[in-house]
């Protein structure tokens, strides 16, 4: 029932502002360093414009003649001429002349349909009470990023407090990035870059630095197998989500502002279940989901992505520049990006079991291969941007096998895979340089989720649809570093009771309206 409860709460928690908060960043330290506005790199922070993408690709530097733009000179860690003495001296580098530290805070106000508390049913599992209106502090975060010279970039961000509690924060990304390593191998410029540390995978559309209030549902989709006893059960408890950070290395190349772009990452497998326990889970009956583990160090998960961006200007010169030469000034390109991605990993679970002799206790280890695969597109025309992503998730199911006469399994047999699919489409339109209108559609379809929720007796959604919402929104830049955001999540109908014909009764929606104020400095 833990899984049931977990899934029930998942749907309830979706309503709370804590999880609605994205983890977005803009880097005001760069504004200080270069004496330029946030809008040099951002359309509507943290959404990057083409110049911002080029700045990031270059390792947090201006793509050309970076030193001529820096208003605060860097501190030399060795004279440049020291390079000639290497390896008999430490290779000279630089550190930024100012501490590259930025801070960010956001707060929320949410209006939730009273229907949200329909989940709380007397005598059954009770979720947290959700107030109709609620003020919530969001994230207070610190982040630092920059370049150490020699094309070595760095990034660290950490949430100091979340929702007013100072112990809930966590490290976001923290890595060193060795830009343009390709020059050492006489490969084309920027064709090979190495990133080492903890980082968000090179997703088609970032979640860690997303600008929407609520996250993309498909990015937060874990794959929990069906545990409803009324249906064939699965032994899948994979809490991996694509939005989670990976720890490892990434090789990448190309540019985000035009042409090809690829990334290959090798990261720790991280398919932790709810709370990894020192005690293996004891299956009851055929299975009950088991307990995942943080890391199986003998295997690294793999992620790969390839995308190509077609800049569509007729003028070839303009087409290949960082920004297009518009009649009234430089602007983002008109472009179409097509991409695909693939993640392969192994979900690790343990179960208390017996050796084949049927008497000697042991710990059975199940490594369940899984993959996430999908495609994406991104089209931009002047101030209109539409993009979308599709994902298919597949987890191999290895079910503990309990021979007759025994109470613990002695091995595994192959079950039916746990799968899900979904994605999102979002359209952004900049009405003014300070006003962005958003329309988004999220969908996650998981048979296991549906069965689990139906079995929990406190959730119902139309068959074949487990999460499906339209989310119109608007964002306003009060200043380049202060933003007000609004979002209305229009969710599918649900019901708690059924009539004799099995039809849902008293259907309702748990829609939410959320406003956010955010500033960085």
């Amino acid at each position, binding site marked *: 029932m833990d899984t049931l409860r977990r899934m029930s709460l998942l749907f309830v928690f979706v309503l709370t502002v804590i999880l609605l908060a994205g983890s977005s960043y803009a880097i005001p330290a760069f504004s200080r360093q270069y*004496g*330029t*506005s946030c*809008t040099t790199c951002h359309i509507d922070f943290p959404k990057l414009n083409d110049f911002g993408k080029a700045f990031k690709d270059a390792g947090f530097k201006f793509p050309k003649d970076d030193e001529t733009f820096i208003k605060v000179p860097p501190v030399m860690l060795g004279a440049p001429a020291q390079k000639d003495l290497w390896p008999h001296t430490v290779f000279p580098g630089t550190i930024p002349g100012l501490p590259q530290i930025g801070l960010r805070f956001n707060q929320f106000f949410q209006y939730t349909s009273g229907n949200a508390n329909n989940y709380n049913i007397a005598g059954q599992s009770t979720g947290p009470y959700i107030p109709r209106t609620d003020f919530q502090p969001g994230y207070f975060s610190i982040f630092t990023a920059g370049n150490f010279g020699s094309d070595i970039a760095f990034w660290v961000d950490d949430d100091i407090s979340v929702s007013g509690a100072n112990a809930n924060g966590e490290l976001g990304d923290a890595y060193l990035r060795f830009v343009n390593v390709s020059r050492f191998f006489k490969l084309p410029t920027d064709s090979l870059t190495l990133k080492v540390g903890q980082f968000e995978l090179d997703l088609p559309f970032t979640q860690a630095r997303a600008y929407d209030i609520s996250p993309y549902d498909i990015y937060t989709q874990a794959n929990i197998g069906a545990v409803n006893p009324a249906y064939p059960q699965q032994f899948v408890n994979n809490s991996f989500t694509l939005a989670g950070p990976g720890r490892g290395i990434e090789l990448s190349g190309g540019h985000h502002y035009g042409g090809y772009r690829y990334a290959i990452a090798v990261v720790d497998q991280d398919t932790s279940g709810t709370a990894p326990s020192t005690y293996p889970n004891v299956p009851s009956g055929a299975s009950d989901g088991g307990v995942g583990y943080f890391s199986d160090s003998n295997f690294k998960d793999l992620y790969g992505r390839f995308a190509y961006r077609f800049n569509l200007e007729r003028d070839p010169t303009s087409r290949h520049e960082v920004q297009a030469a518009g009649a009234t*000034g*430089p602007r983002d390109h008109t472009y179409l990006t097509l991409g695909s991605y693939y993640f392969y990993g192994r979900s690790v679970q343990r179960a208390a079991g017996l050796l084949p002799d049927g008497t000697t206790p042991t710990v059975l280890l199940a490594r369940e291969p899984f993959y996430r695969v999908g495609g994406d597109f991104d089209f931009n025309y002047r101030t209109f941007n539409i993009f979308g992503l599709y994902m298919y998730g597949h987890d191999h199911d290895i079910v503990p096998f309990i021979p007759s006469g025994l109470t613990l399994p002695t091995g595994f047999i192959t079950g039916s895979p746990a799968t899900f699919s979904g994605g999102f489409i979002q359209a952004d339109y900049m009405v003014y340089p300070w006003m962005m209108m958003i329309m988004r559609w999220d969908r996650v379809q998981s048979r296991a989720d549906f069965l689990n929720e139906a079995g929990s007796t406190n959730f119902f959604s139309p068959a074949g649809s487990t999460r499906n919402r339209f989310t119109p929104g608007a964002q306003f830049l009060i200043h380049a570093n202060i933003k007000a955001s609004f979002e209305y999540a229009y969710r599918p109908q649900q019901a708690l009771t059924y009539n004799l014909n099995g039809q849902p009764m008293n259907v309702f929606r748990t829609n939410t309206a959320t406003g956010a104020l955010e500033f960085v400095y």
Partner: protein
Amino acid sequence: MKHDLVVKHSLALAALVMMVVATSQAGTISGKVSGVSGESAVYVEVAAGKTFPASTQQPVIDQKGLMFQPHITVVQQGTTVEFLNSDSVAHNVFWPSVGGNKKLTHNLGTWPKGDKRPFKFDNPGAVPLLCNVHPEMSGYVIVSPTPYFALTDKSGEYKIENVPDGSYTVTAWHEGAKSQSKPVAVAGDTKADFTLSK
């Protein structure tokens, strides 16, 4: 021989007379702009019935290091200014108004590094220069209706030379401050101080 001497004396006398006349007709306006810090522009407004030769100067305003350089350029009405991009990033130059007249807004577009784009300023007044991709960038062209103008030094001192004697209106302009105009009767060296406020 005697005839040559007479000619020489006559020429010398004529030159002397011309110098005296010229000196008596061309004065200097000098003074200080206070109440603000940094450079200000001071120029002589157009006087009725007086015309001035067209400017031959062609100043260059550079976009370098995400800045307009120089920050303030004073030109005579009718002057063509060349806008240069010395940065390796794309820039733009536009102005929302000329002398407060928003109908005179203009956008020069964008051009590559090293290229220039000319524009002839036919209307007097302050022209705030902006770049629509780097909103922090700011510069000014002050279009003077006469060739008599000056840019103060950082302490506010200025000097406008070769102003024909007469009565004029002189205007002082400073970024972000209210411009101030005052009548000035030019006769030789003339003082005109201004106190501006925001």
